[in-house]
């Protein structure tokens, strides 16, 4: 058997092959007769399959007593004895089997593994030699020895097996095993070179080789990178491109890969797909941008609907990564292509609409929404309308926003309409609409945000507060300073409970804008006994600020006071956890 196997194969593969070839037919034959337990070997196998290892071992032993060279029974013993903590009993059985039949590949395989596992390399080698004498061009004897030694963490013995195999079969043999062994032994440069040799000889192993090298610890990657650069071949550069994608340098990886793409489109696409598969699902912006660019590169090598689909995915990926300019450029390519089907054109228009919203162009976005008309279903239309409405809010036109969603009776529609009432300072109307939206939402974060707003409204306890609407509108437009000053001023006019919640909100906005001093003043002001929930939350934030300022003792004191004063607060578990971290009792 000379078929090559990849680095991802399981251990003791030959044993399983032998099991299938030698044992299973025996069991199958037994089944044909009457049932699977009519032969001794069948009964032993059934016992083993049922987990009755002691019983199985007894039955295998009985078979071996009569037929010492029964490969099926010997393999069975090889399986069950280690589970029974009786591995030492295997060796005499192997020796008896060899005495009865010294040329059986199955027996020789067990012998090689048994001696290798026991650390008896001389004996393992002896049976490898005997095995290979009958199959001089077969690399399985050496591989079995090498795998058994590697499984036993005996790298010195594994090296012996590798060297002997390559000495006998030539330098082109056992290349994957050599690369694995070098990597396991910590020879990064040697392993990298060995993997390039593997890929050059057998290109389908590229992903496996890259997968193996990708596992190198960060400190060793530089050496692997240098080795691949020094090699400079197309294969090495392709591998380095894929590796850089895995190692957190996606832009460099894509550039490297593009420069090393093969001339044939299929090969180039396959390589780009490998990189995209690696980047797909990562959340950092660099990976998302590189993933989008990789998709575009794939799309450029395709035609017809496939091209349109890939380019659409690229445009969406650019937009999701915040690169609206490239998203619009790719969408224009799709729109200009005569080969794009109708459904795809609608998808392109939808994506374009979202890009326009992201770019802060509500009028153009609303026009695009109108052009879409009934090409999208009602739910999707409502969703897009809500997004355009929010874009109008950010541009300061609340009326246009309300007109767009006035008939939206979905949970999200009630939610947004409630917020628009809040932006106008109509707390009573906002309260009604937000309550109609209910306690649930598609996203938990959105539901909790609604609870937060209702809490604020209830704490203030007044029907109309235009100043609150102005402050929150300013916040929606990104004017944090105006929102903070508006909320702080409003707090001075409210009752203690509402004032504390309002100041807490202002403090959190200040924190988000890195105005630590301002936030601290507001947090201390929110520490009011009339508003225990706001007080506990404010104290937790004060403790966090003390930690950030390098004053752990103050933070600890603040946290302990929080826990003792408001043990029922929802933030107490977080306060305890922070206190534990300060005490150094958790990582």
């Amino acid at each position, binding site marked *: 058997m000379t078929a090559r196997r990849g680095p991802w194969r399981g251990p003791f593969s030959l044993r399983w092959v032998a099991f299938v070839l030698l044992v299973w037919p025996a069991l199958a034959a037994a089944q044909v007769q009457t049932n699977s337990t009519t032969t001794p070997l069948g009964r032993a196998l059934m016992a083993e399959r049922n987990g009755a290892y002691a019983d199985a071992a007894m039955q295998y032993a009985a078979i071996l007593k009569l037929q010492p060279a029964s490969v099926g029974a010997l393999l069975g013993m090889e399986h069950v004895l280690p589970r029974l903590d009786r591995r030492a009993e295997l060796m005499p059985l192997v020796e008896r089997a060899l005495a009865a039949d010294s040329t059986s590949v199955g027996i020789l395989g067990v012998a090689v593994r048994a001696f290798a596992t026991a650390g008896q390399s001389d004996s393992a080698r002896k049976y490898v030699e005997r095995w290979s004498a009958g199959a001089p061009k077969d690399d399985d004897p050496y591989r079995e020895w090498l795998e058994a030694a590697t499984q036993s963490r005996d790298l010195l013995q594994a090296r012996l097996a590798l060297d002997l195999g390559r000495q006998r079969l030539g330098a082109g043999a056992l290349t994957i095993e050599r690369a694995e062994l070098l990597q396991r032994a910590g020879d990064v440069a040697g392993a990298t070179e060995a993997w390039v040799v593997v890929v050059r000889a057998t290109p389908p192993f590229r992903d496996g080789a890259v997968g193996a090298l990708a596992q190198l610890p960060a400190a060793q990657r530089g050496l692997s990178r240098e080795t691949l650069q020094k090699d400079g071949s197309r294969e090495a550069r392709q591998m380095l491109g894929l590796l850089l994608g895995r190692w957190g340098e996606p832009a460099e990886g894509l550039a490297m890969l593009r420069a090393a793409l093969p001339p044939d489109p299929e090969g180039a696409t396959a390589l780009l797909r490998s990189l995209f598969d690696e980047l797909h699902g990562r959340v950092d912006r660099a990976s998302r941008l590189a993933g989008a660019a990789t998709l575009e590169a794939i799309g450029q090598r395709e035609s017809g609907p496939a091209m349109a689909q890939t380019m659409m995915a690229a445009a969406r990926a650019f937009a999701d990564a915040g690169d609206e300019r490239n998203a619009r450029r790719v969408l224009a390519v799709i729109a200009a292509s005569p080969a794009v089907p109708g459904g795809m054109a609608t998808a392109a228009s939808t994506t374009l609409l979202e890009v326009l919203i992201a770019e802060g162009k509500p009028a153009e976005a609303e026009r695009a929404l109108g052009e879409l008309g009934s090409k999208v279903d009602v739910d999707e239309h409502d969703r897009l309308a809500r997004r355009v409405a929010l874009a109008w809010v950010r541009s300061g036109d609340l009326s246009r926003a309300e007109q767009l969603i006035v008939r939206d009776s979905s949970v999200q529609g009630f939610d947004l309409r409630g917020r628009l009432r809040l932006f106008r300072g109509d707390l009573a109307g906002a309260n009604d609409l937000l309550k109609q939206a209910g306690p649930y939402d598609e996203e938990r974060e959105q539901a909790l945000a609604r*609870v937060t707003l209702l*809490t604020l409204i209830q704490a203030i306890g007044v029907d109309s507060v235009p100043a609150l609407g102005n402050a929150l509108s300013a916040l929606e437009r990104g004017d944090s300073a105006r929102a903070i000053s508006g909320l702080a001023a409003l707090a001075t006019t409210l009752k203690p409970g509402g004032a504390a919640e309002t100041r807490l909100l202002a403090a959190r906005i200040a924190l988000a804008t890195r105005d630590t001093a301002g936030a601290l003043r507001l947090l201390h002001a929110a520490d009011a006994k009339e508003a225990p929930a706001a007080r506990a939350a404010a104290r937790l934030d004060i403790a966090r600020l003390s930690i950030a300022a390098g004053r752990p003792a103050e933070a600890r004191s603040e946290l302990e006071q929080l826990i003792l004063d408001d043990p029922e607060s*929802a933030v107490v*578990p977080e306060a305890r956890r922070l206190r534990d971290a300060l005490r150094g009792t958790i990582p």
Partner: protein
Amino acid sequence: MRRRDFVRTGIAASAGLFLPRRSWILGSAARATSYVIPMDDAQDEHLKAYGLAFRALERGERGEWLLNYRNGAFLLPASDALQRDAALAGVTMEPVDDATVVAIKGEIQASNMDAIPLEKVPKVAVYAPPDAAPWDDAVTMVLNYAGIHFQRVWDPEVIANGLDKFDWLHLHHEDFTGQYSKFAITSAGAPWLQAMMQLHQSTAARLGFANVPDLKRAVAQRIAAFVERGGFLFAMCTATETLDLALASEGLDIAAAYADGTPMDPLASSKMHWDKALAFRDAQLELSPSLAAFSDIDGHQVNTSERQPLGAFDLFNFSAKIDPVATMLVQNQRQVIPDFYGLTTSFRRSRLKADVVVLADEPGAPWVKYIHGERGKGTWTFFGGHDPEDPQHAIGNAPTDLSLHPHSPGYRLLLNNVLFPAAKKRELKT
């Protein structure tokens, strides 16, 4: 800052208004003279409850450990300090008056339960190298988390008889055969291994030993003597197996050449002095220097081709009034606990001495998990595995955050060991 950020920042503060929170003190404290710290599923912080009891003893208060009553509850006298401590730690307490205490005592008297007075604060030492991270060892982690004070000791202190001032000693996952956990070949070149070898070699030289295996054997003998004199020893992971191998190998070379310059005696297994060991007998030593396994004591052999899959282990039930020590060691709110690997995970039954008390085992398996015994005036307890909440425990894994496992039954077993030296000594029948 946009609306999305605003709503995010406001969530944590206000969500609490809508979430019912559980009190850390259940019931009325009006006429409470004591507090029951339940250790069944009513407890919010099982691990920190041990620290609460420990600190009460440190303050000079006395308490009782109610064995088998609500899975090993504590009864502590009411005090402002106790209430404050429990609130900060999040430990659940239930106030009880004298009449209720009497009723509890009656129930204990009539059942397989017992009330053990807690009156002495044990002086706790953890044997660990000076460069060990706090997260490198399960006991260090759980002592820190529970808030139980301890001191670190290592080879210089042990060799200088520094154990005399302690009641309780835990062994970090040390390799007392002096072979650096046998990672020297497979992890050669790794910075952490090089640092470990340098530290051990320089310490051995400084203390006048020819090599690290000689130093570690001397340390093992000092630890055995500590137990003989009445100390409480608790060991986990590979410290269990290698401590006994070091003790039993007096006059023998069981270390690989990379550790002491000479290969191990190939016939060492047949020459071991098992009478000097605490727990094990008749083990076969692992001869391969590159295999990270020491002997066939461990049933799981995690780093070899004989690696066995993890199952679950069962805690034994003991008679609280007849076997209070064993009962203390198995107090838990769970009787079946998922197993976890260590360099030494379990102990083969066939390798246990006859007088060893098995506290937990895996039914049907040829190994046990948790054992206890006596030597001279002291006791030892061995617990296989490395970290009860990190079953695979590979090198480089993120450290365990115990605040995510406040009810960990595996970690409770460790803390039972810490507190049991605090129990008032009386005639023990085990």
